[in-house]
């Protein structure tokens, strides 16, 4: 196509700039957005509610007490939050494993599809678990 204006700029009409796409153009940007949206859609990258964080602080009291003398309060909060995220992922894994076990034992015709769906979700969960485990490992390594 020839550019009549003789410039690389997109020609303006009526003095207003044309509507430009707000989406990322580079593959890297598009990938980042897709990941973020996937994480929200799976419900695994949303903030952990306070009550769950509190429950984790109680559940891992011994661990938090073990870490407290060698960390500042901010790091302690980070640790409790990371534990809550990790606990949420573990709970999700337990749910999926339950469905996998039930579908594996069931003789119903839909069991194969249920099993397949649960395995797809377990595959997605794996990436989040790896990151969460790595983050916890980093926070606890020198404690």
């Amino acid at each position, binding site marked *: 196509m020839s550019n009549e204006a003789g410039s690389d700029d997109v020609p303006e009409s009526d003095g207003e700039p044309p509507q430009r796409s707000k989406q990322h153009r580079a593959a890297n940007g598009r990938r980042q957005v897709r990941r973020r949206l996937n994480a929200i859609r799976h419900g695994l990258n949303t903030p952990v509610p306070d009550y769950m964080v509190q429950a984790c602080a109680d559940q*891992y009291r011994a661990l938090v007490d073990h870490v407290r003398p060698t960390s500042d309060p901010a790091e302690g909060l980070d640790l409790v939050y990371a534990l809550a995220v990790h606990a949420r992922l573990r709970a999700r894994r337990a749910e999926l494993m339950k469905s996998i*076990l039930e579908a594996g034992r069931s003789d119903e015709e839909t069991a194969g599809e249920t099993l397949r769906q649960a*395995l797809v979700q377990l595959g997605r969960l*794996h990436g989040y678990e790896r990151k969460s*485990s790595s983050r916890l490992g980093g926070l606890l390594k020198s404690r």
Partner: protein
Amino acid sequence: MMADFDGDLRPADAIERMWVDEIVDLSWDLHRLRNTRRSVVEKELTARIIELLIMTPTGERLMQEGRNTDALNRAARGYVKGDPASLAVVINAIGGRRLEDALQDVMIKNADLLARLETSIHNTSRLRDGIVSRLYSRRDFIERRSIASGDEQ
């Protein structure tokens, strides 16, 4: 399993306790996933063997003796589980070649599911191994730090 891992890894503090608990959980998951993989193949193969067996004279005889398909089911399940008596009955009735073909059919029909199970087993195993390695690397770190602080004193 918990006792085995506790005995092998000997968690020394609350952090190691958490990692060991997680290693045990993931080992259970691995065990369950492998069981599921086996049960998928067994279930399908049993159904396929019943289909094949019912068309043979042995199958007809088993049906007449039991007046229903229970005897057929028992023979097919016994074959899949490796029961010697059932193995003999089913192999004689159907033939080794057709049984191999049946197994191949089952594997092809369930290829997608079995591949997904294989991936989940691989991922879970990697996750568990990662935690074991984290546990040992933390121990090394603490040991090196204590040696260094001993040297300083």
